């Protein structure tokens, strides 16, 4: 059984992936308590193990080091979450890359200006909403006849895509905007209400009203 330490700052949706996967697989993953983002990950000792200095980063009790949130989640998961057949495994990867390349860029471009993390740029901001819509439409069509993204049970695909959607659902997808995506909303609500998800991410509060962009 995998055991080890996860280095991350609090409320990091990328770290949630591995922590939730570990709840399903019973891997023993502890979040480092003495980690200060911006300091610890810049030390010589940290960079020797994790050259890019990025988090989340994972070190197993037998000294194996991994970076990249999806690779860590894969390692601490189990075969049920990874996909049973080669095709299922590839489908899980397909949705993980969908989250990384279709959802994440659009989510950052829409949510970050609202949170004041990045400068507002009207063109980029409006374009990101269209990109989010098309990503949610693809999910919605897929989930019309399916409960989960791959096969008939929760997999890493559901965990990774749901974690990547957290910022959107909590900060900018107000009831009006998310209304058309009935199947996606149903799927997302099911995934975040699994006990393994809730124990890590807590109660997910859906956006009621989008905060004004801080121009």
């Amino acid at each position, binding site marked *: 059984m995998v055991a080890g330490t996860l280095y991350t*700052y*609090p409320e*990091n949706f990328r770290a949630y992936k591995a922590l939730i996967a570990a709840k399903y697989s019973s891997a023993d993953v502890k979040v480092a308590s003495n980690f*200060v*983002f*911006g*300091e610890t990950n810049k030390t010589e000792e940290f960079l020797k193990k994790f050259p890019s200095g990025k988090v989340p980063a994972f070190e197993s009790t037998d000294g194996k080091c991994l970076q990249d949130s999806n690779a860590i989640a894969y390692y601490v998961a189990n075969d049920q979450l990874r996909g049973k057949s080669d095709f299922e495994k590839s489908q899980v990867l397909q949705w993980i890359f969908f989250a990384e*390349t279709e959802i994440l*860029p659009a989510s*950052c*471009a829409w949510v*970050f200006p609202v*949170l004041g*993390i*990045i400068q507002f740029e009207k063109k980029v901001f409006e374009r990101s909403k269209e990109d989010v819509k098309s990503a949610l439409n693809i999910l919605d069509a897929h989930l019309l006849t399916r409960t989960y993204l791959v096969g008939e049970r929760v997999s890493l695909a559901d965990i990774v895509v749901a974690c990547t959607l957290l910022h959107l659902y909590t900060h900018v997808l107000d009831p009006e905007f998310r209304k058309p995506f009935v199947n996606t909303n149903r799927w997302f609500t099911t995934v975040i209400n699994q006990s393994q998800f809730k124990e890590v991410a807590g109660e997910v509060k859906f956006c009621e009203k989008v905060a004004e962009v801080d121009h």
Partner: protein
Amino acid sequence: MALVAALSQEKFWFDKSKYDDAEAAYYQKSAQ
């Protein structure tokens, strides 16, 4: 060149590092 025409129809996250930097700064501030 067909490749250039094809690549121009593809979508890439050109300014990803700008978002990475902003996100790191934001969470470093809240961490400290």
